[in-house]
């Protein structure tokens, strides 16, 4: 009995002593104590943190985002053909890293869960010394991580997040978004829907039950009801539901003649496929052909849904078939690297990485408040969306919005969307106070 406890004691004591001896010097040299701002890079490299969904409903988008980030890092470090760096209107980046430091990166899996995303962002900030976090394929996650970055004092460059709230009521000074939002989608889609379906329609919404879905539903309602449409019902569906048949059955007899699918990623692929299988598109309601609208489209989703997307309207941030110099350069360089064209998720994250690096270079510092000042009110061109403004009031980019339609006769498996209209920037701009929220001051941490 006594011998047993003696040995436990000695083991514990030994273990503790060994551990303390081994690591005693490291805690005192921990970089957390010094530095003027969080994770100030002192060596010859600077670390970016790429936080994307590698599992879950948005895994496809996440994988494409990661590819784009790796490509962006290559281009910033002067490897490869330079991609959109050559067409970018700002020429600050020289292809030798940022502020003379080589860019390296760490990655994390958000799992499309706020909790996991924050844990992995924290790891990148606290352990790996990331100076900036970027990524996210869900607005819920983006908002959660943006809040974390504000607290930690690093810049957050939002990836694919479409909810108004990211730069609306949940905006933060340390957060920046290149992607468009549901307000812009609504403003761009409104006139197109009016031309295609008229002003006397009854809409039925199926909405992913989180911040982006609510925001999307609100914006589409706002703009379609302004046209004279009625909204029959708006039903919330859980994110990642998989099977939507129980939500689609009631649509058949609801008296609605337009189904609006406020879904994204695999959810949209599933709900659209099932809606078509239920014969919604062959129906006649109120003497009109039944129509389906997918407000936020992406090429990856269209590919997943295959035949079913033909003729279905939606909006998108960017599409690889655009013929401006920036888009062509990006598609070429991405295609050479990976063998297929990039998605809009890849495009926006590539742009965000480049814009951040460029802002650091122009500011001559990585300090969040300096970088933020360089991004605020920044006018640029050559990144595939035409002349673009990073608005200072809400850290939101303003650029043209594409309205697209599922192509009837695709030439290849990537050629599934056709651009119906490029809605000019002026038409989708809105006053910054429309969406509420306030930025607050920058947090440099330290």
């Amino acid at each position, binding site marked *: *009995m*006594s*011998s*047993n*406890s003696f*040995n*436990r*004691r000695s*083991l*514990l*004591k030994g*273990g*503790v002593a060994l*551990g*303390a001896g*081994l*690591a*005693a010097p*490291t*805690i005192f040299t921990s970089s*957390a104590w010094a530095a003027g701002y969080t994770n100030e890079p002192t060596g010859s490299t600077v670390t970016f943190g790429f936080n994307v969904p*590698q*599992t879950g409903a948005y895994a496809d988008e996440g994988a494409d985002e990661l590819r784009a980030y790796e490509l962006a890092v290559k281009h910033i470090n002067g490897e490869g053909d330079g991609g959109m760096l050559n067409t970018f209107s700002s020429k600050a980046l020289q292809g030798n890293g940022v502020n003379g430091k080589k860019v390296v990166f*760490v*990655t*994390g*899996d958000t799992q499309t*869960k*706020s*909790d*996991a995303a*924050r*844990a*992995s962002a*924290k*790891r990148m900030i*606290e*352990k790996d010394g990331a100076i900036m976090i970027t990524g996210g394929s869900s*607005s*819920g996650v983006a*908002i*959660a991580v943006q*809040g*974390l970055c*504000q*607290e930690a004092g690093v810049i957050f460059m939002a990836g694919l997040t479409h909810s108004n*709230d990211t730069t609306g009521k*949940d905006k*933060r000074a340390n957060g920046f978004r290149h992607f468009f939002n549901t307000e812009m989608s609504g403003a761009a889609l409104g006139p197109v829907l009016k031309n295609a379906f008229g002003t006397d329609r009854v809409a039925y919404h199926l909405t992913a*039950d*989180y*911040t982006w879905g609510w925001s999307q539903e609100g914006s589409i309602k706002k703009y379609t009801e302004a046209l004279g449409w009625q909204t029959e019902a708006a039903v*919330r569906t*859980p*994110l990642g539901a998989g099977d939507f048949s129980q939500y689609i059955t009631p649509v058949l007899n609801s008296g609605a003649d337009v189904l609006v699918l406020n879904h994204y990623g695999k959810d949209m692929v599933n709900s659209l496929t099932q809606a078509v299988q239920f014969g919604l598109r062959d129906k006649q309601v109120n003497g009109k052909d039944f129509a389906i609208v997918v407000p936020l489209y992406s090429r990856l989703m269209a590919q997943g849904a295959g035949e079913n997307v033909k003729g279905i309207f939606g909006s998108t941030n960017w599409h690889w078939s655009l013929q401006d110099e920036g888009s062509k350069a990006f598609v070429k360089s991405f295609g050479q690297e990976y063998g297929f064209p990039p998605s809009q998720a890849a495009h926006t994250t590539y742009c965000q990485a480049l814009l951040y690096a460029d802002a650091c270079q122009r500011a001559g510092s990585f300090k969040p408040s300096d970088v933020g000042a360089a991004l605020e009110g920044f006018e640029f061109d050559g990144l595939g969306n035409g002349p673009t403004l990073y608005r200072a009031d809400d850290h939101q980019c303003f650029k043209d919005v594409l309205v697209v339609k599922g192509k009837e006769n695709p030439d290849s498996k990537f050629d599934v969307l056709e651009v119906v209209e490029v809605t000019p920037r002026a038409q989708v701009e809105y006053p910054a106070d429309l969406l509420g929220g*306030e930025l*607050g*001051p920058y*947090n440099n941490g330290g």
Partner: protein
Amino acid sequence: MLTQTSKKGDLLLLLGFVLAVAFGPIILQPFGAGYPDLLQKFAIFGIFAIGFNILFGLTGYLSFGHAAFLGVGPYTAVWSFKLLTMNVVPAIIFAVVVSGVFALLIGFVSLRRSGIYFSILTLAFAQMSYNLAYSVLTPITNGETGLQLRQHDPRVIDTMFGINYGAELPSTTLFGIPMSGWSGYYFCGVVLIIMFYISMRIFRSPFGMMLRAVKSNQNRMNYTGLNTRPYTLAAFVISGMYADLAGGLMAVTDPLAGAERMQWTASGEVVLMTILGGTGTLLGPVIGAGAIKYFENIFSAFNEGTLLQIFSFLPEGLQHAAVSVAALFVGEGWHLTLGALFMIIVIFLPGGLMEGVNRIMRLFTKSGSGGSSPQATAQPAE
């Protein structure tokens, strides 16, 4: 670990535990785990698993819905931050009280059954809470987005004392000490030590003995005229409060509450932690919790670049082969590694990692290894 306890042994165990918590950052630095967020998680999930072990390890009631309590904690705490004050003390007290009531309700219904029926009932309650948080209760829980702090929250008590956070988003404090980073870890660590001590007292008390008796043969106890329900209910409520304390601490170190913490996978995780570490042992659940969180945070972050570095000593061709094999087990594949480890432990060390530790110890103490070591018998994981 039923036998062979002495006051001195317990004291030493506690002392060792205190030292391990105090020097945690230093000890874990070489393993790449010496950063505050992960250590906070170790401590928080340690508390969660200790609490779960009080129910599962002592009474043998396998709750598959413990995440419900873990999920309620953050909501209560974040609401306290929003409405009352950024000080963490009221938040934690509220979290524990609310969930105590919650556990009493669920326990009162669920404990009418035992064995698999109990497990399913608790699972059902947890899934119900999860779905409620996701849909019906959205005004309180903010659904999928999760509950977050805002600049314009009322914070009545803070306002009363004239504390103004200005335009900046406030962060949680313990009377002025920030609750993120290292101070947050030490706060969690102190709570963990206190909770460990309480759990130790329960294990050694007559109450704990009664709970063990429930595990070994509840029928026999009923036949002797003893009503076991109050004991099991008490254990259930204590265990639920532990879980909620852990949940509250989560919100303290990171003021965000989300419904995904209540998902059944989170309930399963704590079962894994406890079995991995050693059911019914004092230290086991803490070790199990640490192991799982380590895998989740460190192994999942390995990407090909990291692997190439690790295997850089090999010749080029071999290096790429090694990387492609190893890549299956890290990054997204960390679940696979964890699963394999779990199987190995359940098959070869049914008593969990603690059994392994005990076996190693017995190797060194030849004298005591005659046969009088009743604690080493496997406790199958129901």
